[in-house]
């Protein structure tokens, strides 16, 4: 057990999986000698050499496309896209191929690859370095879309993603990289992909969040408990897609009131599916409309304005109180 921040926890997951399995290779821009621009692959190049930790040319479509080829051959590529804002360059490879090879070949081939990308705001970053693009992946059948919320689950989920026989898009919240250390066991630990967790039990209201927003949800829940005597249940999705509807619906049935928090723009965003899925199965239990606290439908505002756009505790509180009063 060691106290690690998320960067170190992810690095540990990669290190241990590479030690365990020679087929695991890393590929991306600056992942090698430099150890990745956020240092998630630190020291791996020294340990495993340039053939396994590959500094690629600057071309995202080829990183993912070559990853597909490696995965088809039987390797387990862990690709890094330097920032999720640059993954649209390879979006055709995701949609056309990564997600489809298993189906196209009726199981003769599959693509056991992981694509890691830093995502999200709150770090005073420039355009294309702060956005939250999970929705685009969640809508593609055949992809799994995972977003951890802390050092320990980041490590466990990354191990699970590497061992998963299907492609996993793995978003890492930049704002969480160095945010808080957690106890991370020395032995390899995994967590099931596709399962949400109740991050805080409660009875009066459900707050659905993931990634950085789990922290915001927790602060809001504490304030609700202290100030309003209201106990909010927090669902930490961990996997965005396939969505763990069972856990969501169970909580909504219990509390009857739901607030969803995400950093992505609201319209046609992940919150819509979460809300619609809950309505599908818990309609008669809902006491109030499901509220979404999200970024506005503006693509980029610059970090000088960022605080006005990112969901924060006051907005979650306002939505929760409105929902509770409804």
């Amino acid at each position, binding site marked *: 057990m060691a106290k690690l921040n998320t960067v170190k926890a992810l690095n540990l997951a990669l290190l241990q999986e590479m030690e365990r399995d020679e087929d695991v290779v890393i590929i991306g821009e600056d992942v090698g000698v430099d150890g990745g621009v956020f240092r998630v692959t630190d020291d791996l190049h020294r340990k495993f050499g340039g053939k396994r930790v590959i500094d690629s040319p600057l071309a995202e479509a*080829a990183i993912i496309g070559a990853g597909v*080829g*490696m995965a088809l*051959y039987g390797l387990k590529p862990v690709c890094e896209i330097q920032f999720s804002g640059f993954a649209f360059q390879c979006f055709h490879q995701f949609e056309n191929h990564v997600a489809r090879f298993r189906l196209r070949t009726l199981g003769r081939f599959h693509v056991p690859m992981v694509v890691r990308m830093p995502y999200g705001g709150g770090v005073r970053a420039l355009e294309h370095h702060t956005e939250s693009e999970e929705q685009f992946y969640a809508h593609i059948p055949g992809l799994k879309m995972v977003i951890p919320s802390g050092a320990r689950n980041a490590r466990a989920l990354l191990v699970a993603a590497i061992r998963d026989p299907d492609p996993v898009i793995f978003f890492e919240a930049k704002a969480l990289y160095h945010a808080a250390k957690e106890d991370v066991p020395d032995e390899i630990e995994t967590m099931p992909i596709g399962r949400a967790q109740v991050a805080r039990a409660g009875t009066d209201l459900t707050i659905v969040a993931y990634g950085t927003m789990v922290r915001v949800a927790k602060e809001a829940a504490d304030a609700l408990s202290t100030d309003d005597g209201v106990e909010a249940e927090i669902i930490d999705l961990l996997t965005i897609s*396939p*969505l763990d*509807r069972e856990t969501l619906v169970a909580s909504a049935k219990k509390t009857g009131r739901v607030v969803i928090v995400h950093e992505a723009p609201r319209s046609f965003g992940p919150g819509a599916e979460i809300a619609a899925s809950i309505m599908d199965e818990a309609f008669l239990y809902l006491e109030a409309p499901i509220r979404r606290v999200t970024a506005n439908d503006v693509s980029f505002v610059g970090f000088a304005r960022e605080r006005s756009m990112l969901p924060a505790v006051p907005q979650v509180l306002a939505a929760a109180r409105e929902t509770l009063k409804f």
Partner: protein
Amino acid sequence: MPRTALEPRFQVEYLSILDADGKLDAALEPDIPPDELKRLYRAMLLGRHLDERMVRLQRQGRVGTFAPIKGQEAAQLGSVALLRSQDWMVPSFRETAAMLWRGWPIEKLLLFFAGHIEGSQPGPNQNDLPICIPVATQLPHAVGLAYAAQYRGDDVVVMAYFGDGATSEGDFHEACNFAGVWHVPLVFVCQNNQWAISVPLKKQTHSRTIAQKALAYGFPGLQVDGNDVLAVYAATKEAVDRARAGDGPTLIECVTYRLAMHTTADDPTKYRTTEEVAEWERKDPLTRFTAYMKKKGLHDDGLQAEVEAEVSEAVRRFEEIPAPDPLTVFDHVFAEMPPHLAAQRDLLAARLRDDAAGSPDPPEERPASPPMRGQRNSRWQS
């Protein structure tokens, strides 16, 4: 001008051995054993015949839109023949002849064009990727396969196919650049058939050859007469040997011509002259290879009937294949079916049971527009 010209200068070579008039450059003639020549010749005949048959099947509505290969048999077979079974073949969507050579059953190809995904499943030990429709997107896969083979230390070469139009795509460029840097055992085979649907090469790129594009990536590029199966064979042999020896990738430009339509949905008279087509018909790869085989005493008059029978037999088998089960697809989205897919599957299963239990079929949909091109079914046109 008193500037420094950097060394080495670059040049692009052109290789032709058996020309359109059947003239053979004996000094360059590759040493292909008679049995291999016969196999090659038979495969060319089969490719040509299946092509004609498939166009007819499409016209009869028994398969959907299909991309004919007529005229490109030498480019495909002269190259693919150099692969061994452990090597990998990465096709685009116009490699019927090469796929047959690699062991794809004819009926599977028919299934593909009849809209069954069963048609894109390679056999259990077949090192081929399936047909790839988005132009050039298969090329980075080939690089990854070749890298993985090299990483594992396997004695494997990868061969990737694409057209002249594909060279305009970013994926072509990125794949070539990666292949150059990684020095992988990969042969890029461009079938430059002069057209990308209606776009002629001169609107596709301002470079004089496709072969010279290899210079941008620091590996050799060679232009060959793609209608000369001997030249294609010789050039590919050199490239495959180079790859196997660890000397990296090669780009081979096969100068050829698509004698038929882009797909069965296409009307080439809109964009090219019959004179142009006639000019290329004179250069038909099959004609000159037939003459060569005859001269070598390797020609077998019964072959045509044999390949026709083979195709007919396969078409018969294809037509016996029942409509596919709509439910199978759910098993292949993920290794394990997640709950939401299981629910969707169950709903569909129930609906199919209802249908079978007697509810009338919905009215037949209007005849469809063809897939890879626009709709040309005049009944619905205006």
